[in-house]
C-alpha cells in the first residue's frame, strides 16, 4: 500500500487562492447572516467562484472546464469548509463526475459546459429510510409510452430549489439506475424545504410522483461506487476545513477567557483535549491528501480503504472537536449566539452523510482483516 502524499502546484495554488477568497467573501458572520435567507449563498458570490473556474475544475477542457480531477477540488472545498461556507460546488462537481462516468455523449455535451459555466446540478440519492447504501433505492421509474413515469420520495436533496438539473437514483427494470431531471420537469409543489441540523445548508424533500421524463434522460451506465467515493472525499475535505476552524475558535477562547484568575487554556483539563483536536485535524488532513494523491491511480481496493479510513477519521475528529467547542465555551457555548454551535451542527451533518465512523470501520473489517496483505 502506498504511503505517498503529493501536493501538486495546482493544488497548492488552489488552496492559497481559495483560503483568501473564502476568508474575504464569506466570513463566519456572513455565513451566519444568511441562515434566514432563502438561498445559502449569494448569487454574486457563486458567480465569482464560477469566474475563478472552480465550477469546472473536474470537467474536461473540451467541455469548457479546467480538465483536472475530482481530487483537485479538495483544496477549494477544504477552504470553503473553514468558515462553513456552503455552495453548490460539491454536488455540481459530483454530478459532473457522474455524467462523465455514466452519461451518454449527448448528456455530457448538453450539461457539462453548462455546469462548468455555473449551472447548478445536484443529486437526489437519499430516501426517507436514511440508508447509506446508494443502491438501496425504493423510488421507481417505469416505462409508459415514450416516457418514464417516476414515483416515490427523495430527501435531503441539497440546493434542489435552485438546481438547474437534479440527478436522481431510481429502480428501473429491477436495477438501480440514474436519471436527469431538468428543473422545468419539477412541479413547484414537489419540493419541500427540510429542517436539518446544519442551518447553513438548504435541503429539500423531492416528491417524484407525477414527474414524467423522456427516456433519453436515463443515464446509460451507473457509477454508484464512484459517487460514494467522490462524496466521501469532498465531504471529508469540508470537514477538514470545519475542524481547523473549530480548533481556532477553541484556542482563541482558551487564550482570552479567564476563570478563577487564570486563562482557562492554562488548565490541563482543557489544554490536553485541545491538543487531541489538533492531532485529529492533522490525521484527517493526512488521510485527505493521501486520498487525493492516489484517487485517480490506485487499485479500487486501495482507494476504498483510503477513503473509508478518511471518512471515519474525519467524522470522529470533527464531531469530537465540535462537541468540545460547546463544552469549553461554558455558559456562552450553550447559547445560539456562540459560533461553536454552528461548527457542531456542521460536524454532525457531515458525520451522518455517507456513513459515520462506525459504519466505515465495519466495512473496513473485511477489507483489512479478511484478506491477506
Amino acid at each position: 500500500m502506498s504511503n505517498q502524499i503529493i501536493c501538486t502546484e495546482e493544488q497548492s495554488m488552489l488552496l492559497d487562492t481559495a483560503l483568501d477568497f473564502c476568508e474575504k467573501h464569506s466570513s463566519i458572520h456572513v455565513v451566519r447572516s444568511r441562515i434566514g435567507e432563502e438561498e445559502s449563498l449569494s448569487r454574486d458570490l457563486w458567480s465569482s467562484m464560477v469566474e475563478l473556474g472552480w465550477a469546472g475544475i473536474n470537467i474536461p477542457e473540451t467541455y469548457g472546464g479546467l480538465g483536472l480531477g475530482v481530487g483537485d477540488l479538495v483544496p477549494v472545498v477544504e477552504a470553503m469548509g473553514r468558515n462553513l461556507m456552503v455552495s453548490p460546488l460539491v454536488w455540481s462537481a459530483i454530478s459532473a463526475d457522474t455524467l462523465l462516468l455514466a452519461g451518454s455523449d449527448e448528456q455530457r455535451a448538453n450539461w457539462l459546459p453548462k455546469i462548468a459555466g455555473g449551472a447548478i446540478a445536484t443529486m437526489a440519492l437519499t430516501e426517507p429510510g436514511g440508508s447509506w447504501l446508494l443502491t438501496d433505492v425504493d423510488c421507481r421509474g417505469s416505462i409508459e409510452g415514450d416516457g418514464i413515469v417516476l414515483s416515490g420520495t427523495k430527501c435531503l436533496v441539497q440546493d434542489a430549489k435552485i438546481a438547474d438539473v437534479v440527478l436522481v437514483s431510481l429502480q428501473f427494470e429491477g436495477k438501480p439506475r440514474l436519471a436527469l431531471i431538468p428543473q422545468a420537469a419539477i412541479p413547484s409543489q414537489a419540493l419541500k424545504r427540510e429542517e436539518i441540523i446544519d442551518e447553513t445548508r438548504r435541503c429539500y424533500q423531492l416528491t417524484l410522483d407525477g414527474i414524467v421524463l423522456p427516456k433519453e434522460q436515463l443515464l446509460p451506465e451507473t457509477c454508484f461506487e464512484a459517487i460514494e467515493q467522490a462524496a466521501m472525499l469532498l465531504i471529508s475535505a469540508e470537514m477538514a476545513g470545519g475542524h481547523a476552524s473549530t480548533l481556532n475558535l477553541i484556542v482563541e477562547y482558551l487564550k482570552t477567557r479567564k476563570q478563577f484568575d487564570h486563562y482557562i487554556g492554562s488548565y490541563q483539563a482543557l489544554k490536553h483535549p485541545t491538543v487531541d483536536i489538533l492531532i485529529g485535524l492533522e490525521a484527517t488532513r493526512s488521510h485527505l491528501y493521501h486520498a487525493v494523491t492516489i484517487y485517480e491511480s490506485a487499485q479500487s481496493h486501495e482507494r476504498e480503504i483510503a477513503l473509508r479510513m478518511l471518512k471515519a477519521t474525519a467524522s470522529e475528529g470533527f464531531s469530537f472537536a465540535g462537541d468540545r467547542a460547546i463544552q469549553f465555551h461554558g455558559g456562552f457555548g450553550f447559547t445560539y449566539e456562540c459560533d461553536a454551535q454552528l461548527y457542531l451542527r456542521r460536524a454532525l451533518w457531515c458525520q451522518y452523510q455517507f456513513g459515520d465512523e462506525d459504519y466505515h470501520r465495519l466495512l473496513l473489517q473485511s477489507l483489512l482483516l479478511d484478506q491477506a496483505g
Partner: protein
Amino acid sequence: MVSEQEQNEFRAEVSAWLKENNPGDPGFLLPESFMEVGTDQQFEYLRNWQRKVYEAGYLGMSWPEEYGGRGMPQIFQDIVTKEMARQRVPFMTNTIGLNWAGPLILQQGTEAQKRQYIKGILNADDIWCQGFSEPDHGSDLGSAQVKAVKDGDEYVVNGSKIWTSLGAYAKYMILLARTSNDGPNKYAGLSFFLAPMQAEGINPQPIQKLTSEYGFCQTFFNDARIPANCMMGQEGEGWQVAMATLMFERGNVGGQAGGLSMMDVNVNDVLELARRSKRNGKPALDDPLIRDQMVQLLIEARSNTLMAAKAAIPPLNSERPGAIPMSGKLRGSELKRRFCQFALSLQGANGGRFVSPDAVDGGKWQRIYFNSFSATIGGGTTQVQYNIMGERVLGLPKS
C-alpha cells in the same frame, strides 16, 4: 548520486549477508531495545552481534574513514538498517553511542575526541550510557542538580543520575552536570562531559523494572574525579550541547551511525497475533468487538504513517508546522502502549500469564506492554508532551 542499480546490488549483498549471519534464536528472550538489557548473557550476545556487523562493514558506513567509518553515502547505511528491520535481526546494542553520543562527537568534538571515541562506539568495545535525568527531575533536564566542581585538572562530581540504560556495562557516560549556580538562569550553570564510568566513586546500581527484569541503573557519584578535558564544549554550555544531543535522540537531525536500534513491533504484528488467536475456542477475528478494535488500531497506525508523509510537504503544513513532528513521540508511544494492551486481550485466560514457556509467544506481549511505558514516560511523559504541544504549537498559556 548512487544509481538505482548500485543500490539494488548492495541491497542484495546485505540481504544475503544478514541471512547467512543472523545469529538466530539464542534460546532465551532477547531484550526489545538497549533499555532492556538486563543480563550478562543478553549483553554479550548483543555486543558480539554488533561487532560482527561492524566488522562486516555494515555499521557507521557514512561516518568518516579516519575515525573508523567507511565514508560512504548515507543511502548505503539506510539500506542496511531497513534490511535489518525487514529480516528482524537483533538490534545494535550500543544505541546511545551510535545514535546520540557518536554523532554529537563528530559534530562538535575535538580531533582528539573523535580519534579517542568513535571506533570504540562502532565495534562495541566502548559502551555508552546517558546521564541526563535525575531522581527529582525526570522530564525537567534544566533543573539538573548533580554537581561538578573544578579541582585542578579534574572535576569532582557528586549526586545521582537515574534511568542510565546499560549503566552497568558502560565505559563512558554523556553527563549533564551543574558547574555553577551563579548564571542568569538555571540553564547557564550546566556543563556537558564525556565522563569515564570506571572512575572511583561512580557506582551504577541496577534498578528492577516493573517487568521484574533489570536494564536501568541509578548511578551514584560520590566525590568521583573525572578529567577536566573530557568536557564537551565550554563550561556553562552544557544545555546547548544537551539540546543538540536531544536533536539526535529524537531523530530531528541525521548523522547517526545507523543500524537497527530496537526490536520493531508494530500493529501488523498484533494483527498477525489476532489471526492465530482463539477466544472461547473460536477465532478471535470472528468476535465483532475484537474486529472493530483491530480496525481502529490499524486506522490510527495508518494516521501516524500518513502524518509523517504530510509533514514533508510545506504547503500542507503552513499553519502549524510543528504539529506533526512535535507530536511524534506522543502519538507513536501511546499507540504502541494501546496495541500491546490489546494484544493481551486476544489471549483469553492466558492474557494473565507472564514471561514463561507456557505463555503466548513466551510472554513477549506482556513484557512489551509493560516496557511500552518506557516510551510514554521517558523523554518527557505523554502528559508533559501534551503541555508542550498546547503551549508551543497552539500558543496556549502555561499550566
